[in-house]
């Protein structure tokens, strides 16, 4: 990553270098026009300084010059068009969010940030994967806040009555400041946190570690158990979960099995091992997709469907 320049922090996001190009373009023009005006003013002020006896003389009537006036009207106007169009294009880059962006929900309130991730993980620092577009979907619980990450060149107000969103992609691991930039009351200046950019694998690991296990009924839907296993006893591709736990079931090979925690565990991780009689071996394995705590949660859910 490039270093911080005199005017701008290190360009840490993909949009930052585009931002900096326009910034330094206008910067160059500004220096150019400033030098013209400043040196012109000082030069004329010295060159035409009043001399003794001037009060007896009339000065020149020079007060109009079409070429000069056209020059300093037309050139700035053309430059304004260039800057407007360039600025607009950059603005649209900010507002067109890539479709594959990882979505993180931001909730702001006096005077804290909360970030909620897809897997239910939550944090008060913003953790994002390196090299992937990230979309922030933001809302406030009370007054207006604004989320600002200077090194990424992004900022957007966070409103109490609607969602706002923004996106960025950072290609460098590290820590960056994140500020609230809309004055929000007493402790506005403490509403500061960090963005932590992690490699893709570290990010996944962090999400896994920080994920809150959802209740089993959520997992029942999320993993698609509902497609084949009913909750009301009706027949489907798989045995209904209603009143399943604690029963004895006849298997396809003629033996019987007690439906206990270990049988449920085996059936989820290795579904083909023991098929209940009357059903086809169509269930996929969840060997690498479901973590232990989620398995616990799901089994707990199935247990809860047992009738006393």
């Amino acid at each position: 990553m490039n270093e911080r320049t005199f005017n701008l922090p290190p360009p840490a996001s993909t949009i930052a270098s585009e931002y900096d190009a326009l910034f330094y373009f206008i910067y160059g023009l500004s220096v150019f026009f400033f030098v013209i005006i400043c040196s012109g003013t000082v030069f004329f002020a010295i060159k035409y300084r009043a001399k003794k006896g001037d009060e007896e003389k009339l000065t020149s009537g020079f007060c109009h010059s079409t070429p000069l006036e056209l020059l300093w009207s037309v050139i700035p106007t053309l430059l304004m068009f260039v800057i407007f169009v360039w600025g607009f294009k950059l603005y649209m880059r900010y507002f067109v969010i890539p479709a594959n962006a990882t979505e993180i929900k931001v909730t702001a309130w006096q005077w804290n940030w909360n970030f909620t991730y897809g897997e239910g993980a939550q944090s008060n620092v913003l953790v994002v994967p390196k090299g992937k577009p990230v979309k922030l979907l933001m809302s406030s619980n009370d007054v207006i806040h604004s989320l600002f990450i200077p090194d990424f060149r992004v900022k957007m107000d966070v409103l109490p009555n609607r969602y706002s969103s923004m996106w960025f992609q950072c290609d460098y691991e590290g820590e960056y400041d994140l500020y609230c930039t809309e004055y929000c009351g007493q402790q506005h200046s403490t509403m500061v946190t960090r963005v932590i950019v992690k490699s893709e694998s570290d990010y996944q690991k962090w999400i896994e570690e920080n994920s809150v296990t959802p209740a089993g009924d959520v997992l029942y839907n999320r993993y698609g158990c509902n497609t084949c296993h009913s909750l009301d006893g009706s027949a489907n591709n798989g045995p209904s979960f209603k009143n399943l736990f604690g029963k004895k079931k006849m298997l396809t090979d003629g033996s019987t099995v007690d439906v206990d925690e270990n049988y449920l565990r085996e059936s989820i991780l290795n579904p083909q091992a023991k098929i209940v009689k009357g059903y086809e071996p169509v269930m996929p394995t969840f060997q690498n997709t479901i973590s232990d705590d989620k398995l616990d949660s799901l089994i707990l859910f199935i247990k809860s469907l047992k009738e006393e």
Partner: protein
Amino acid sequence: MYNDTEKNFLTHPKGIMSWLLTLDHKRIGIMYLAAILAAFAAGGFFALGLRLELLNPGKQFMDQDTYNKFFTLHGAIMVFLFIIPSIPAALGNFCLPLMLGAKDVAFPRLNLASWYVYMLGAMFCLYSLFSGGVDTGWTFYSPYSTQTSTSVISMTFGAFILGFSSIFTGINFIVTVHKMRAPGMTWYQMPLFVWGSYATAMIQVLATPVLGITLLLLIMEKVGGIGIFDPEMGGDPVLFQHFFWFYSHPAVYIMILPGMAIISELIAVHAHKKIFGYRLIAYSSVAIALLGFFVWGHHMFVSGQSEFSSMVFSFITFFIGIPTGIKIFNWMTTLVKGSICWTTPMLYALAFLILFTIGGLTGIFLGALGLDIQLHDTYFVVAHFHYVMMGGTVIAFLGGIHHWWPKIFGKMYNENLGRFAFCFIFVGFNMTFFNQFMLGSQGMPRRYHDYSNFLKTDLFERYHGFSSYGAMILGVGFVIILCYLVASLFNGKPAGNNPWGGLTFEWSTTSPPPTENFKDDPILKHGPYDYDKVLPKDI
């Protein structure tokens, strides 16, 4: 000593009641001058407090509640009590009728009423200052302003009342310019100060009611629980921003146009040179006043307003930059082939060209849609508007004070001290605000009490420290100015009618002028800047 053989407006009639009930525009101007200078001192006090608190990271001497009130009061006082009335109500009141060759403004009673309304509004602001202060920022953004328990109601009601004082002055100026010009004075022979004041008056009359309505709605929401802006009551907070900036952006031009108007006078008079592009300067004042109504959304590029609105507002914003740029080039070119006296007022005029150019150029960064995203609500914005409002309007105001002081009081101040103090102002101002551009673009948000827990605390501390020392130098400059101006009232040399060599009407009468302004009704014989045809000593 004033010239005893003639009655001037300062000494006749005598007595405190003759001032409090005066209908003389010159006296009302002086009463305004005293009031706004008191407001400026109060606003400056809060500013110094802020700078001292920010000298180092961490808490210095005030807690966050106090800090939040300080920046709110600094902004509210400087905007509503100082800068909006400063040039029009003080210098404009004094100069505009004189420059037109009139005896007074069109409605002298309305003029006096506007001063009393101003004082009433100021009382409400003072009340809210002493009843716990306000902590919303001068922008009063809802829903925070609806929910905070500080004295928002009295402050906004004060600003609401102050609006009427501004409207009264505006109406007076418009009618005076239309109806009371001296015989022979056509629109294009009016001094440019009058053109600028006229354009300002149009904005005052057209835009101020919107602020009044907005603040009234805010008060209704707070007192009556009527949901307009607060989403908890079914309102929309972004609507408040639209309403607020619909006034407050044009208000920026209420602040700067009179400054530009003064600069046109100062440059032409002290360079003894016909002004370059008179008509373009006059037209551009009016163009800026009109276009100024259609750019408010550029304060809201990241507020959640639609991208299409942002695009339109950005486009119009760039168009307002062009007449401003043309003015700068015109003023600079006016210097060519002049006979330039390096008087104190002229130093301020030259400083204006340099400082206002920085303010204008940095506005381009903020007007460009994409660039505003990084810079919005950071110190870059703080630096930008201080370069425009202080490097522009306040510098022009100081120039105007130094320019018309001999006319107002008949006394000359010490010019060497004037130039000396100018150096403090120029250096102090740039030290305070120039580094805030970098501070902001590096990411420092505005309205922060503390910056000690950042990854960039060290970097920010360097910039903040520099700013704070600059503010002290600036403060010293103002104290020097106050001292020698007050001293001049007691021991200043008599100024004479026309100390700078001006050609407009106010320089043809005595200093101070008589109550009726002119002994004989003035008739226009030459243009305001005909330095190629008339010698100043012959007017």
